[in-house]
């Protein structure tokens, strides 16, 4: 346990203060992806303050779960009708916005039919302890 007996050096500290929760999403129609084809999608969430700590969860409509994005998340979807497929996301702040950048890459080397899907994002923002 942290030892707070030396209170001249520190005060009892807490975890992150809840600040706000914001949502965003992007919907993608069915498409044909070329061999080693690439598509990119962006979810932009405007923020009042980009000097914050964020924790983001993403859910693709083809998944039954939300994914924690600890900076970056890489996911492959072998359960899709098409195997060897990558849907990856990364999170960053810029210009007062939280950007969730997702790209879809075909790794099979052959043209693929991609079903329609939606990516939902939940961004939990905390007051930065800095």
């Amino acid at each position, binding site marked *: *346990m*942290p*030892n*707070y007996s*030396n*209170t*001249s*050096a*520190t*005060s*009892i*500290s*807490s*975890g*992150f*203060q*809840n600040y706000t929760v914001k949502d965003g999403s992007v919907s993608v129609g069915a498409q044909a992806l070329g061999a080693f084809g*690439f598509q*990119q999608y962006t979810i932009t969430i405007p923020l009042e303050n*980009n*000097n914050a*700590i*964020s*924790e983001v*969860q993403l859910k693709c409509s083809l*998944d*039954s*779960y*939300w*994914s*924690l994005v*600890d*900076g*970056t*998340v*890489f*996911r*492959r979807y*072998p359960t899709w009708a098409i195997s*060897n497929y990558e849907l990856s996301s*990364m*999170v*960053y*702040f*810029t*210009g007062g916005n939280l*950007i969730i*950048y997702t*790209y879809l890459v075909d790794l099979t080397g052959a043209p693929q039919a991609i079903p329609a899907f939606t990516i939902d994002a939940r961004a*939990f923002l*905390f*007051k*930065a*302890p*800095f």
Partner: protein
Amino acid sequence: MDATKTAISVPELDTDKIVGVLTGSISTGVPASIPGYVIGTATHNTGFGDSCYVKGIFSVDGGTTWNDLGSMIPDNTGGPPPTFQTQECIWECSPTGVVTVRATNWYNFILGSGAAKTFQYKLALIAKNDQGDITPLPTNSVTAYSSADNYQKISSQGSVAWDVTPGVDKSATVNHNLGYVPKVKAFYRKTDDTILPMVWNDVSVPAYLEIDVRVTTTQLIFNSDGLRTSFHNAYTGFIDWRVYLDA
């Protein structure tokens, strides 16, 4: 301080404990096409004598914009496709509490150029699940607990054994049974008590770690994709996890 004359209100629900805040900067030179990157590091000896968790942000534009550690801003110049490997900042914490921040400045192979970058970073150190007897670093008033504020509240925490075998699919499940999708944190703890984020790399070695954290209304599911980890490294250790009541 005379504890018998001090009144204090503490929360019924446990919260994270921020045990230190660190800031710094790392300057990196111009990357060349070979090896394709320049790495700079900074270390902070917390004096804990024990490892801890870390969350943080970094900036490569002088503090105008900040990004989560582990993320990279794609560069769309000259694309598509964009250049995904641009500037990256990763942390790790040694068993004795030395926090290393590693900044990787990548060469842009689409544009055929590189530029020197200065990485600024800010870290929050968080007490781990089984934190030993440590003395937190002096904090500022922003981290001091106040019953007037709303904090992430811990519902449950624990660890699961997780040994990584490159190229092998792996999965483990923890039941939280909250009935909704909660906030979570997870960190990788090697058997020597080194703490890493769940997605981590050191390209100079090279060494890689990649574990998904999936959340449902009843479970945490940790997953490692064997195809993606085929060129990664073997590790022995645990996943430390925390589920919060907050959603």
